[in-house]
């Protein structure tokens, strides 16, 4: 038993200050990302979330250039980007892709500029790597504190508007008719998204932040029957990915003889991807079973047509399914 334990948790794992930091930052980021991610997937704004990751990268690179903490850059420019996307027209479906694309393009341009100056003037080659692929093991304690405060603010904002936000996601018309300030609620969500993506950039890197935002949320939404449960499952899946990722990255130092270790971001994103695939299995199995009879989703989609042609038959099928 002891042998198995030491094989899984390589020597020094629990005593390492770096591991403590990684687990604290990673756990916080996993929860904030999962909660924001559920609303992002429901609202169909994954592309916006990804674009904000690129904006974060530009912010982090800029902060590095002028000697600020990267988290200030990640979150600061992310908030500016979210505001810009809202102003250009993230609310209208047609305007949304346009706004996202414009902001994303400008952000990548800025990143290129900032990173050019950074690499030209600074000898610390690791910093670019940290902006793009995260620095979960080497976060300073000041940064951890800032991350905790920002994460708490983002979660509190989402908790405050969760019901109006959900109602305006299901139907902006009903929400507006009932007196919900749809635009304000949407803007608040965008700001929470910017903070969440900024924190995720800190942990696993600006380029990979989308994975932690969308992956656990999308997987949770596949297997749960209510938004509340989706939030819980998304948090658990996010924590699993980060915890296991940190463990594997730590252990990987002892794999083989080169003692290079593998990047933690790779493990986290890999685990997120695998859990997403696994949560698709029940639905795939149902669809497989259904194809021999009548696929449930197909029955729903064609119910009107069927009911039109043979009213009783279509309805009977519908009832049997529900």
């Amino acid at each position, binding site marked *: 038993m002891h042998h198995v334990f030491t094989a899984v948790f390589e020597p020094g794992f629990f005593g390492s200050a770096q591991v403590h930091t990684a687990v604290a930052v990673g756990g916080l980021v996993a929860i904030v990302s999962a909660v924001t991610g559920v609303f992002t997937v429901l609202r169909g704004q994954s592309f916006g979330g990804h674009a904000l990751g690129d904006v974060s990268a530009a912010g982090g690179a800029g902060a590095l250039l002028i000697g600020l903490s990267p988290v200030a850059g990640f979150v600061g420019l992310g908030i500016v980007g979210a505001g810009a996307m809202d102003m250009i027209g993230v609310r209208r479906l047609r305007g949304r892709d346009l706004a996202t694309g414009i902001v994303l393009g400008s952000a990548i341009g800025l990143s290129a500029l900032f990173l050019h100056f950074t690499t030209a003037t600074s000898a610390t080659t690791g910093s670019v790597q940290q902006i793009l692929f995260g620095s979960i093991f080497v976060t300073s304690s000041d940064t951890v504190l800032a991350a905790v405060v920002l994460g708490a603010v983002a979660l509190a904002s989402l908790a405050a508007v969760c019901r109006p936000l959900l109602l305006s996601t299901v139907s902006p018309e009903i*929400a507006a008719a009932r007196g919900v300030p749809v635009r304000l609620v949407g803007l608040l969500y965008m700001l929470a998204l910017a903070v969440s993506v900024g924190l995720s950039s800190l942990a696993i890197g600006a380029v990979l932040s989308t994975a932690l935002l969308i992956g656990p949320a999308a997987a949770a939404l596949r297997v749960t029957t209510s938004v509340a449960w989706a939030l819980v499952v998304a948090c658990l899946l996010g924590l699993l990915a980060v915890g296991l990722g940190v463990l594997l990255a730590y252990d990987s130092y002892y794999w083989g003889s080169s003692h290079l270790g593998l990047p933690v971001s790779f493990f986290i994103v890999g685990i997120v991807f695998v859990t997403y695939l696994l949560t698709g299995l029940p639905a795939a199995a149902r669809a497989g079973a259904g194809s021999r009879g009548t696929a449930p989703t197909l029955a729903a989609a064609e119910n009107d047509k069927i009911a039109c042609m043979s009213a009783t038959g279509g309805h009977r099928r519908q009832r049997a399914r529900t």
Partner: protein
Amino acid sequence: MTDQHHAAAILGVEGVSVALSGRQILDDVSFTIGPGEFTGLIGPNGAGKTTLLRVILGLQRAASGTVTVLGKPRLRDAIGYVPQKVVLDPDMPIRARDLVALGADGTRYGIRLPSWQRAQAVREMLHAVDAERFADARVGNLSGGEQQRVLIAQALISRPRLLLLDEPLANLDLRSGQEVITLLARIAREQQIAVLLSAHEMNPLLPVMDRVVYLAAGRAASGPTAEVITSEVLSKLYGYHIEVLHVAGRVLVVAGDAAGEQASAALPQAPAVLPAAGAG
């Protein structure tokens, strides 16, 4: 055409005009609806039905005129609304009962705490629209008719006195449409709610419709169905000759006279067959 048939109307629309980007959408529209009345808002596509509903909801500003609900302006809480396009994605883990619960407290801030009272109210509403069977199914997986019933329950749970529905029969098969209409007529009668339902086709509504607001070219004629759906009133409304034909218990509204001399030939913008023409 104004008719002040109610001293204590639930909805009063008085002289409402709306112009959008220079085009006159509604022109001096007036009508009232009383408690328990089922009113059809009938008119061709583009007649201004959705705009009128948006004005009543306070989502669209009118250039002139007033809207009162229970005698007061801006009485949002007294209105239940089922919009035309609610895209319910099967990927959303939102059950029928969740959607109805959002109707109850979707405007409140803060985290929702478990409430026996709310759960009970949701159950009652699902029962009222006969949706208990699929209460725990994802709304995105329900048929069009079932989704309409859930949306109606969502609108009713806030105990409105006025229920607005924008083209609820569009995209429904005939049988589901009939079920929705019967349900709404029963709710209007039992709970004394004023129902205003827009449709471009009036025949399915004829058995239950107490009154009609007929919109054409931005102008409205309103009153009891039999008094409004006549050749004289509709001809005046459209501004050219309209023939109202009664065929096998259904109403056909046709441009031109019955002899086949089409007024539409002289007026190219006039549709040959007007709303309510298609047999229900």
